[in-house]
Structure formats: structure tokens, C-alpha cells
């Protein structure tokens, strides 16, 4: 269970809500008529068996997929579809199920890349790397160093990420997302393929991000232990349909969820 005193369950204002969202690819229904909300400061988990539509849902939220039906309200602004740059400028950052870093670049540069949207000096100064551009870079570097310190990856600062083990790559990816100073952080299976120790580390970082930066987090995860420990509220999808929504305890007891995970006799 979460430590006491954290953001209270469901008390914060609604940061993002999706209403009656449906998404299909050709004849395949990925998500149908799903509604839920994410409140400020909480850790919200989206779970479900393989192919339940979890990643599709995340892609709808950050505007990568455009739903055929439904509305998305983010920070009070209602849209039929989100666009990726609106999402990014609006403060939504994400990590990917399969690591999507610049493999030839160092960990430091990868995280620096996350600051791109926060750079304001013009092209000319950037080209010269002088004057306002230099001051800005120093400032950004400071922020990035704070993130490196936060994620305890000082020793790999100068290592090209392609040479790093998987667990560390995931951490660098989280760092890049954090560099955007997001209000809402979408994590797509942050613990997939990790060993127990790496999972524990990552869980600790997710909690710390939520606690220290106050970032709202939506995460997709398969490891039930992790989900139940980390999240304030859980939404469960199965075959694109929402079958449950509530606190981890409620969801754990929900018969539809148990059936979806364990299967039912036909």
C-alpha cells in the first residue's frame, strides 16, 4: 500500500478525463466507449490482459491516436482529439513500452533532448552557442543534472545509451520524460522485462517522482504486485471495454476482473 499522507485518493481536481472514447482500426475495435478520469497528484494505473487496449488508450491521451468518438478534457479544455504537440506543450510526457531513446547519444544528451520544448533562445544564438543560448543551456543542464541525481545515474552520464543494460535505459527514458517537467506522466509498462531488483528500484522512482515533483502519473503495468502497491486508483480494461474502476482493493475483489485475468469456464 502507499505510504500514508500522500495525495489522498481522488480528492484532487480532475486533471484529465476521457469520456465515451471509442477507437477502431478498420474493423478491429481497440477501445470502445471508455470513460475515466485522472486526478491531480494521483498515480493512476491502467491494467488489463494482453490486447485489452491499454497502450491504445495511452496513445489517445497523448494524441498519437485519434479516437472516432468521445471527448478528452485536459486541464479544463475539451477536445474531440488531442494532438501530440498540444499534449507536449500542455505538459504530458511519456515513456514507451519498447525503449525509444537515441541509442548513439549519451544518457545526458538524451535527457537534454527532453528539454527541447523549454528552449527559447533563437536559432542564431543556438547556432553560436553563445550569449542567451549559453545561459539557457547552463540553466537547462542544471535541471538535467538534478534529474540525473534524482535517478542516481551519475555514473552513466557520458555513456551512449545503446551500451546500457535495459533497466538503465528505462531509467534514462524516465529521465527524459521528467526533463519536460510534465504535469501528467504516462508510463507504458515501466517495469516490463525487469528483474526483481530493477523493479523495486523503478517502483521507488515512480513513487518519488509523484512525491517529490508532485507529478500526476498514469501507468500501464502487468505486474499486479507493483500496480497494487503503487497506484491510488486502477482502471481495468478488457477487450477494449472498461470492466472496473476503483481503488486497488476494490478492483482486486471485482469478479469481472478476476474472470478477465484468470479466464472463465465457457
Amino acid at each position, binding site marked *: 500500500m502507499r*505510504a*500514508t*499522507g*500522500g495525495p489522498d485518493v481522488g480528492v484532487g481536481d480532475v486533471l484529465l478525463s476521457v469520456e465515451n472514447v471509442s477507437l477502431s482500426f478498420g474493423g478491429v475495435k481497440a477501445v470502445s466507449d471508455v470513460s475515466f478520469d485522472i486526478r491531480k497528484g494521483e498515480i493512476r494505473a491502467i491494467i488489463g490482459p494482453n490486447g485489452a487496449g491499454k497502450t491504445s488508450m495511452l496513445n489517445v491521451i497523448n494524441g498519437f491516436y485519434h479516437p472516432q468518438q468521445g471527448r478528452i478534457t485536459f486541464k479544463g479544455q475539451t477536445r474531440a482529439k488531442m494532438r501530440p504537440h498540444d499534449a507536449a506543450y500542455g505538459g504530458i510526457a511519456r515513456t514507451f513500452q519498447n525503449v525509444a531513446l537515441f541509442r548513439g547519444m549519451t544518457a545526458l544528451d538524451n535527457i537534454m533532448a527532453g528539454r527541447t520544448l523549454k528552449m527559447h533562445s533563437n536559432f542564431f544564438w543556438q547556432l553560436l552557442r553563445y550569449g542567451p543560448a549559453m545561459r539557457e543551456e547552463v540553466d537547462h*543542464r*542544471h535541471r538535467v*543534472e*538534478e534529474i*540525473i*541525481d*534524482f535517478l*542516481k545515474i*551519475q*555514473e552513466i*552520464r*557520458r555513456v551512449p545509451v545503446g551500451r546500457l543494460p535495459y533497466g538503465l535505459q528505462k531509467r534514462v527514458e524516465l529521465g527524459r520524460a521528467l526533463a519536460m517537467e510534465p504535469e501528467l506522466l504516462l508510463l507504458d509498462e515501466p517495469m516490463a522485462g525487469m528483474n*526483481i*531488483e530493477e523493479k*523495486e528500484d523503478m517502483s*521507488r522512482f515512480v*513513487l*518519488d517522482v509523484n*512525491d*517529490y515533483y508532485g507529478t500526476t502519473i498514469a501507468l500501464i503495468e502487468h505486474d499486479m504486485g507493483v500496480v497494487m502497491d503503487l497506484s491510488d486508483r486502477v482502471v481495468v480494461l478488457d477487450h477494449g471495454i472498461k470492466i472496473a474502476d476503483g481503488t486497488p482493493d476494490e478492483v482486486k475483489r471485482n469478479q469481472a476482473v478476476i474472470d478477465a485475468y484468470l479466464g472463465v469456464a465457457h
Partner: protein
Amino acid sequence: MAPNAAAGADTFPKLLIRNAHIYGARPAMRHKDLGIWQTWTWSEVLDIVRAYAVGLHRLGLKRGETIAIVGGNRPKLYWSVMAAQMLGAIPVPVYADAVADELAYVLAHAEVRFAAVEDQEQIDKILSVLARVPKLELMIYDEKRGLRDYDHSRLRSMDDVIEDGRKALADAAVAAWLDKEIAASKGADPSIILYTSGTTGTSKGVMLTNERSVRAATDTVTFDKLTENDVALAYLPLAWVGDHYLNYAQGMVSGFCTACPESPDTAMTDLREIGPSFYFAPPRTLEALLTRVMIRMEDAGFIKRKLFHYFVGVARRYGERILNGESVPLTGRLLYAIGNVLVYGPLKNVLGFSRVRVAYTAGEAVGPDLFSFYRSIGLNLKQLYGQTEAFLYVTAQPDGEIYADTVGPACPNVDIRISENGEVQFKSPGMFSGYFKDDAKTAEVMTPDGFVKTGDAGFFDEKTGHLKIIDRTKDVGKLNNGTMFPPKYIENKLKFFPNIREAVALGDKRDFVTVMLNIDLAAVGSWAERNNVVYGSYQELAGHPLVYEMLEKHVADVNRSLADDKVMAGAQIKRFLILHKELDPDDGEITRTLKVRRGFVAERYAPLIKALYDGSKEADISTEVTFEDGRKGMISARVKIRDMNGAAPAMGKAA
């Protein structure tokens, strides 16, 4: 620096004040934070420590009380030590990676009311054993991250304590009171309690006094001519006597700058950036560094590889002699100079050794080849011998008298003698005043005439007059046929091969010698990659037939070298096996300072040992492993055993 610059200052706080006076603007401490090296001068450190001491006093820390220091090498933890000493309290450093059990033992035994801790990780560990440390009242933390939701009635931030003290210090009366406190500390007061790593059973609290610590450090600072211009990197555990002596005590006495790495994993990079002039590394670290260099050279291009090996050969021939100031033919000097530009210089730079003036290694015997390698590339590496009870040094090699197999003559003002049963005993300026709350143990290691028994077997070399350490007295055994069996000696020969990380030799009261080996994952892994050997885990690699074949060759080499020595020829290795898991301090198989705990290993791997001696070709074993968070799991394996043909005594090698 004048040899007796420490004269007059018989405690560390007094030394700190002296340093702030003489070296006020010189760097005392550096720490890399957010990627940038931060520096504190001696006068800044004094200011902070004074404020910190007052803050601690206001929390209730009193003279004579103990305070635990738990964490890595961070300036604030060193300042915690200084601040406690300023109040006449006794700091008790604890290893940062100690598992909760060990931590609970030390905290409870030392009866601490306060603990200065690094971060949440340490706090969690202490909280998990709180029931066993009833006296603990308050934890003062350096890093606030992750602590927001904790119960803060038992927690204080170090910054707040220092700030609180600073405000109080504005009152002249408080400042005067602090000055009086500092003056009130006497040289004979205990300055620190260092818990031994416990090679033999539970750890004991070694009490050291101010005066003796300062005196011992003064002797060695003079011996190695350390000055305020030197720099050291504090990367070894803060709770280890070596760090407390080499960095803390010597730094205080000589005024040199102690740099703290950014994190434990960045020590290599930090070493290179700081370029220390005084360096200490246990043989194991030197070995790991060399292994890494060798692996990288194997991956280098043809020309680079040839160049490297050629000049390493040159260095082997001339390097040590040049370092020792012996006469070397002109061509040798010339070649060495070229090699220095092309290979040794850049190599030392990569390793962070470019500015090292004095380097020491100790802790266990160092492989002669390993030792000469570093010396041959121009690193002034020397050996010392000592233990926590001696406050580290009792012998050290003077410049120009360096031998791989000795640990040097007695240090200035140290008396050393060999007892009848071959045990090394010493009396030194820095020797401990007793084990904390354990007079029986103290009496056990002290002789009636005031010498300390080291438990190490050794003798003075007739040629050089240096002390030679063979092994722990109680470890030197005999085979059933009467042949001497010093396990360390055999193990060290094995461990010199980069592929072998650890070895445990068996043979006492048995018919022949056998060994259990640990492969070095970095070295063997790289070999596997180059030779297309596929493996899924450490266990699988360790059991691979090709790996066995490779190690068999190493064992055969060792047998040949044992055969060359008449006394040891009977102690050749007859059978060996490769362990399925790495020996790990978390499982209690080796100590935190990475020494094998023989008794425990023998018990734990009893089925394997039985198989080694009953002629079986393989044996099943399942062992419990402890994960870093304290949980336990089991791993089991079937381990193969190889027979060796004894090497003939070196008859044909008469050339």
C-alpha cells in the same frame, strides 16, 4: 610541512582549528554535486563543523556519548564525525552497505542515541530494526529525498541542525562555551570506535584515542612527506579503518584535501578528474582495474595491441629499476621514455594515476606480477601492513625498498616481534585502547607486556629486513603427510589469473589439496563473447565445459609454480571445482572488506567439499542467497569436479 606540525594539537577538533588558521584558504574537502566539483576550504569547514556541533548539542548529544555515522563518503558525514568529536562525543561509523542485521548489532552494541545517516535507504534500514535499538532517539539525515511522508518526530535534516547551531552561535556566550568544550577534550579521550569487519565472528568495537590517532598519523605523514598540497579521493568505506586513517586522520594532520566521489559508482571517473596525489587501493581494486585494461586491450586494434604489449614488456624489464633509482642501460631508458609517451602516460591518465606520488596497497597479499605491473608503469605503489587495532599501519615500505612479497620494515616508533609460534605482535603509537564493552576480548589479544597479537603468521626476511606475512596463524595448516599448507598462498597464486575472482583452498588435515573457484564474470564473460560461448547466467557460464578447460590450465600453471618450490611441492592442487555462485558479503561468505570467511564457507558448501574428497565426478548443492533488500532465495546446481595430474618437480627446467 614541519615534521611535528601537529605538536600541541592532541585532538582532531584542535587540529581542525589549527588547519583553519594555517591553511584557511586551502581546499579541505571536495564533493561532486550535480556534475560540478564543489569545494570547501579549511576555514569554511571549521565554520560548518562549529555550527553543526552546537546544533547537535542543542539536540542533546553529550560528551562521552556515541553517535552512529551511517553512509557513504560524503562531506556532511565527515563533518558529522568532526562535529561529534568537537563535543567530546564518540562517532561510530557503520558500513553503508551493511545489511539490517549487522547494522542493528552495531547500533545496539554501541548504545547510540543519535545517528547521522546519508539518506532514506539507511533510514529505512534502521527503521526496520528499530525494535532492536531501543536507545536510538534521533536520525539526522543528509539527503531529504523520499522522506516527506515519514514520521518526522525521529528525523532531523542535517542542514536544519547546522542552521540551528549557526543561529545559536551568533550569541558570543555560546561560541565561548564551544571553545571551552574543545579545549576540555583530552588526548586520552576516545576519538572514534571502529567496528571490525569481522573476518572472525561478530564484529568488535575498536576504541581509538585522539592522541594516539594523531600521533600515528603524524608519523606516517612525515614518513611519506604528505603536505597540504596533496589530494586524496575518499572512495573506500567510511567505516573502514583505512579510510578513517588515510583520509580523515592524515588529512587532518597534514591539511591535505579529501575529495568525495559523486556516487559510489562514479569513483573511477572521479579519480580521473581529481587526479589524487595520494592513493590507496586494496589489491582487489588494482586487480579489477588491470583486468579491465587487459580486456579493453584485447578488443583494441592490431597495432595498438602490439604497441601495448611491446611497451608493457619494456616496462617489465626496466620500469621498476628506473623507479627504484637503479642503473639502467641507456637504450632501456630511451625505450622507457618512448613507452611513457605512447603507453604508460596515457594509461595512467585513464586510470587517474597521473599525479599519484605515493600509492599504497594492503589488506591481503598482492600478486607479484600485479604489483610489478603498476610499479613498472611508474606508479609508486608500496605495501603496508596493519589492522584496525593498530589504527592501520605497523609496517610500510620506504621509497626505494619495494618488494612484492614483503610489507616493509616497522614504521617509525613501532615495535614488532615474532612470537614463538610465528605470530606477528606489535606495539605502536596508534594502537587501540581496548574493545568497546569487551574487556575479555581485549585481554585475549594483548600480551602481558603490552603487545597486540595480530593473529597473522609472518617472519622477517633475512635479506631485506622486511616483514613477510604468510597467512592467518590459525589458517596455516598441515596435510596429513605433514606438508605445510598455507591456503592464502595457494589462493593468491590462483587469483592472479584475471579469470579467477576468488579461490578457496582446502587441505588442512586432509590427504591432498583441493580448491573451489569463482570465475570473474567480466573477464570470462568477455572471453565467452570473443569465443562465441553462449550462456544465460552466471551459473551456466561457471559450469561451461570450455570454462572448466580454461581454468584447468590455470590450475596446472599454479601446480607447476608450486612444484618449483621444494616445501610447497606436496601442496599441489589435486582436484578443483567452479562454484555456481559468486561468494557474496550479503550471504556472509566473505566480509565487507572481501575476505573469505573460511569456516562459514566450509560449512555452507559441505556437500561440495565432501565430493571433492570422496572421488565423485559431480555434486549437487543448493544454497540460500540473500538479496540486497534482505529477502532470501534458494539456488541449486550440479557442480562438476575436475581431477588434476600433479606437475613434476621442476627437473627439466634447469635452464
